[in-house]
Each structure stands twice: as C-alpha cells, then as structure tokens.
C-alpha cells in the first residue's frame, strides 16, 4: 500500500470537471447571470431626458417605484392582478390537470392517446394564435360564444367578456388555463404511471379501492410532482405578458384591469406611442419581479418542499 500522502500528491488536477462544467457555466453566465446583473446595474442609473447624461442615482428608482403615487399605483395593481391570475391557475388549471391525468390513468379509455394529445396540443400553440382565436370566439360581433350560450339557454349570460373590467382578467386567466392545462396533466400522468403495481395491489389487498385509493395512496405519492407544478405555475404566471399584450394591447385595458407585472414592465421599458421608453425604470420593475419570484420560490423550497415526504417507489 502506498502512503496516503503520496496518493494525494500524485492525483493530477481534475481538468475534466472544468471541461464538463465549462460550457454550461459559460452559456448560463452569458445568457442568465450577465443580463440579470446588467438589469440590476441599470436600475441604479437614470438618464436625463434633455441632456441624455447618465447618472448614478442609487436607490432613487426604487424610491420612485414605491413612493411616487404614479408608480406605486400601477405597480401594486399589476401585482394584485398577477396574484389573482396565479390563484385562478392554482384553483382551476392544476386540479383539472390532476383530474384529467387521474382519469387517463385509471380507466381503459378507447382513444386515450388521442385525448392526451388533444389536451396537450394548445400548449404548443403560439400565444398570438391563442390570443387571436379566443378574441375572435369571444367577440360580441362575430364570435361563436354568444350563439353557443344561447343554444343551451344561457344567452343572457353573454357579455363582452374581454371588454369589462370585472370579467377581463378572469377570462384571460381561463384562456391561459385552457392553453396550459396540458402541462400538469402530462407531469401528473407520468407520475401516476410510475407508481409501482405492488403498492396498488397492496392497497387493494387492504380493501382500499376507487376514490379512497386515489386520495389515500396515489395523491400522497404524487405530491412532490404537484409541488413542482405549483412552482412552475408561479414562475410562469409572474412572468406572463404575451397573452395580455396580444388580446388587450400594451395598455392592458379596460382601465388596466388586466395589467400584469409583465405588461407594466414592457410599457415602461419600451414605451408606447408617444410615451418614451424608460429602460432604467423598466430595469427597476424587472428587478422587483425577479425578487418577487425569488421570494416565492424560496418560500416554497424552505417551508413546503421540506415537509413533503418523498417515498421510495
């Protein structure tokens, strides 16, 4: 046996670690870390509108965002709308996703693959197409929704859903649910399929079948997947922008009732019509969005994920 010290001395520098990590670290730095740092840096500067001189202003942009009524108003409204948008996804999209996945995995449905594909399909569509098609379907002038509601005797329920303050945000959230319900469905479906037969058989031996089996056995086993889906939904919703922009325009009407953090950021950063873009203020909002998402994810990681029990299967 060689002495341990010479063993350590002889071991060469492990270059392969660098070689294998290098490309990913490089790409991640260039694409994610540098832009994040640059955004943070931008938010500490401001450009004089007349002289175009860039000056370091410290936290002044944040001060504006939190204490100037014309910034804090839109910001809190967008934050609240975003929260509602997220809650609707959590209450509608994820339970429906679980339900469909459970149905697909439980029964021997003819044409199961067809359903699975059809429900997943909208996820692959562009926001622009989804926004345009739904806008057309819901249009009070040419849309099919009025006729469809009337044909089942609910004609009086029809209203210009996208044009009313009280209904526009909910409508957009439901359109987004329609588009993305395929993702929780697919993930949960995969999780359900990975539950071993023995577990199910053991449950059946103990007389746990049907609904009780689903709630007492399967749901517990797929909870970690549901956790991941929740966090994906959270991150996706707080970055949402495209659907509102394509259906309601940059001013997120009516009366900013559909304004999300993403549309507020877009309007601020790039400007709109005669409103000049303000990249520094935009970067401030983007940084806040980053922190909101960071805090949300951190809460999930430290307080929820730790309590989830993972079972070896």
């Amino acid at each position: 046996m060689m002495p341990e010290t010479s063993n350590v001395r002889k071991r060469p520098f492990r270059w392969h670690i660098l070689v294998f990590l290098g490309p990913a670290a490089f790409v991640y730095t260039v694409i994610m870390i540098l832009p994040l740092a640059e955004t943070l840096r931008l938010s500490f500067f401001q450009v004089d509108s007349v002289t175009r001189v860039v000056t370091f202003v410290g936290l002044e942009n944040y001060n504006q965002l939190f204490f100037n009524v014309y910034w804090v108003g839109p910001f809190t409204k967008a934050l609240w709308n975003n929260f509602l948008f997220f809650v609707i996804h959590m209450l509608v999209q994820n339970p429906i996703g679980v339900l469909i996945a459970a149905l697909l995995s439980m029964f021997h449905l003819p044409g199961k693959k067809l359903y699975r594909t059809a429900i997943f399909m909208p996820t692959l569509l562009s926001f622009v197409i989804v926004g345009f098609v739904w806008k057309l379907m819901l249009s009070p002038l040419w849309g099919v929704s009025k006729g469809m509601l009337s044909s089942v005797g609910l004609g009086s329920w029809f209203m210009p859903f996208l044009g009313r303050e009280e209904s526009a945000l909910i409508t957009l959230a439901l359109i987004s649910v329609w588009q993305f319900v395929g993702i929780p469905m697919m993930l949960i479906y995969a999780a359900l399929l990975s539950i071993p037969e023995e577990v199910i058989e053991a449950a059946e031996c103990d007389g746990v079948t049907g609904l009780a089996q689903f709630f007492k056995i399967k749901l517990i086993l797929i909870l970690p997947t549901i956790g991941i889906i929740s966090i994906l939904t959270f991150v996706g919703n707080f970055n949402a922008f495209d659907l509102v922009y394509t259906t309601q325009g940059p001013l997120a009407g009516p009366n900013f009732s559909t304004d999300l953090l993403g549309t507020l950021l877009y309007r601020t950063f790039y400007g709109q019509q005669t409103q000049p873009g303000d990249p520094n203020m935009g970067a401030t909002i983007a940084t806040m969005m980053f922190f909101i998402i960071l805090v949300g994810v951190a809460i999930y990681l430290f307080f929820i994920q730790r309590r989830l029990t993972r079972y070896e299967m």
Partner: protein
Amino acid sequence: MKYALMGGLATSLMLGTAVGAFAQSAEITIESWRNDDLTIWQDTILPAFMAANPDIKVTFAPTAPTQYNAALNAKLEGGTAGDLITCRPFDASLDLYNKGQLADLTGLAALDNFSDVAKSAWSTDDGSATFCVPMAAVIHGFIYNKDAFAELGLQEPETQDEFMAVLEAIKQDGTYIPMAMGTLDQWESQAMGYQNIGPMYWGGEKGRQAIIDGTAKLTDPEWVKPFEIMAQWGQYLGDGFEAQAYPDSQTLFTLGRAAIYPAGSWEITGFNNDADFELGAFRPPLPNAGDACIINDHTDIAMGLNPDSPNADAAKVFLDWMGTEEFAQLYSNALPGFFSLSNNAITLDDPLANEFISWRADCQSTIRSAAQILTRGGTPNLWSAMWTASANVINGIQTPQEAAAGLQAGLESWYAPQQN
C-alpha cells in the same frame, strides 16, 4: 473571387462618389418609413421632379415603419444616412435636430408656404428654428354611409344637438348600428373621440397653448365638456362595444352594418376599396349653431435635410419643390387621406378626400392636444393616460369629471407650468 468581388464593390463605390462629386448632376437619396408608398414615389412624384430638374437624380429608399427610428439613428451616427430624412412629428425629430442630425432649414423659401401650425411639429419649442418641410396631415371627422342616411331620410348633422338626434333616429329605426367604434384598443376613443370633437370646446390652438403655458387646466369646463358628450356615445355603439377592436369597427362599417364611423382621413383608401355603398363625411359637430369651427388637422409627416449631406444644394432644390403647388397636388392625390400641409389650394380627385380637405377653408386647424411638449418625459404619460381616460368615459367606468381630474393630477405631478 472574394477579392475580386470586394474590388469591384470598392470601384463601383468610388465611381458612385465620383459621379456625385464631380459630375454636374447630383444624386440624392430619401430616407423614409413609408414603404407602402414606394411605387407612388417612384412612378408619380419623383418622375415629375426629375422632369423639371433633369440634373438631379432622386432615389426613394424606405425602411420598414417599425424599424425606421432605430435604423435612421444608426445610419445618422454611422454617417451613412441619405441626404433627405423623412421626419416624424414632434419629439423624435426635435431630438435629431438637437443632436445636430437635422439641418436648420429656417429661411428656406418653401417654408413660407406653410402655416405656423403646420410648422409647429418640426420647429423648436420657441418656434425660432424649423428643421423639416411639412408634407402631410391627417384630418379627423366622421365618415358615414350615404345610402343608410338616404334610406332613413337623415341629413348630415351640423351641431351637437343635431348629431345626437341623428344617432337617436338611427337607433330607433334599428336597421343600423348608429356608430361603429369600440373601446377595446382604447386609442380610437382618444384619437377619434376626444381629439376629434374636442378642439371646438377647448378652442383649438388657443386651448392647447393654454395648457402648455399652465393658464388653463384639463379640469376646466371646456376640457371636460367633450368627455361629457362621449359619455353619451356608449348607448349608440354596437352591442358589446367594450370588446370591439379597431379592425372590428372598420369591418362593421364597411359591411354596411353601421351608419357612422368616427374617423381619421387615413381610412379613406381602405374604405373606398372595401365599402360597396356611397361614402360621405361630415365635420365634428359644432357645440352650438353659429360657433366657430375648428378641426383636428394633425401634422404627421415632413422632410428634413441631413447636415452631412454632400449634395445639400440639390437636396434643397428638392425641399423647395416640396413647397410648390405641384407637389401638394401630386402627393395629396396619390395618397388620398394624407393632405398636403401647404397653403396652396389643391384639387383632389377623390370626392371623400375632397370633402375632408374642404373643411380647411371654413375651419381653423389644430393638432392633437397632447402631442407637443405635454408628453415629453414625465410619468404618467399624458397621451397614454388620455387613451385610458377616454375609453373609461365611454365605458362608463369613470365620470367625465373623474377622468379629467385624473389627467390633470397626472400632468401636474411632473409638468412645471401646471404646478402653480
């Protein structure tokens, strides 16, 4: 091969410069965002100029509208921009002038053919220097379905009361939707609503200037009154107008399902193509019979000179020609709805365009109230706020007083002259 190509390129570039510099003839290039108008410039406007000035060769080189500002800035900074620069109104061009990228044209003979209002979009705030020759404006008003009016026995309304009576009559009859406009996209409410009917209440240029000077407020009755009128519009727009987008309104009107369309003259070409009924136009209604008529004649497009142009003399010949009656006539006829801003009397072939431009004879002109100075810097942006406020008033989300108070408070928060 590669070297040969580059050599060839270099030679042709040198030749090109040589021709420009030494030969008697000059070549000038026009930068523009109007790529839709390429054939009109190539086939109609430029041949007319070159026939009169055979030693100047003009090329029209447009960029896509959305890329124009960015592309032009890059070209100007890199020194590769064309000799003539098509100017956006107000701040975009003023910014270029302040950076020394547009030449001062004050004193150019052609500018005498334009009114101060026309020049205001391309002058410094104090009006001391003008840096672009105004080309065209768009005029606001109402386009209507003449067949529908004849069928219902209606006349063009002249006053606000008559206008409301016409709307009520169309609504009572029920065959047509009285007015085609939606509030989903919001900007129509501002451009075709507030800025269309408003100038007669706030007194056009006088009122606009008073807001800029800080001697009037947006909460004054003359600025609230147009909102009060628009608050009554909602009941005459189609069912579900809250979710009706701009193209929906255009289609609704050209399909003949709506009788009146609050319009800008840029719609003329499209409507002429799409509508198979006779089109008419009437002015924004007078507040009371006998009141002075003021129309929104919004300055939109102009032409300036690149100060680094090696062919500045030839370019100035072209700019001077743009002040002539011939140019005004050619341009306005080729693009009905974009009206020359010059003081020359022009005749148009398109009857609808003719109707719009005839209003200039009886009415004073003004531009959109928040287009100049009031939207420069500052949060909240008055222009965007007016979109939302106008749509809110029509939707009934805000009362006219609330809408005006919101606009005024927003403006006061950053615009110094309004703060005392």
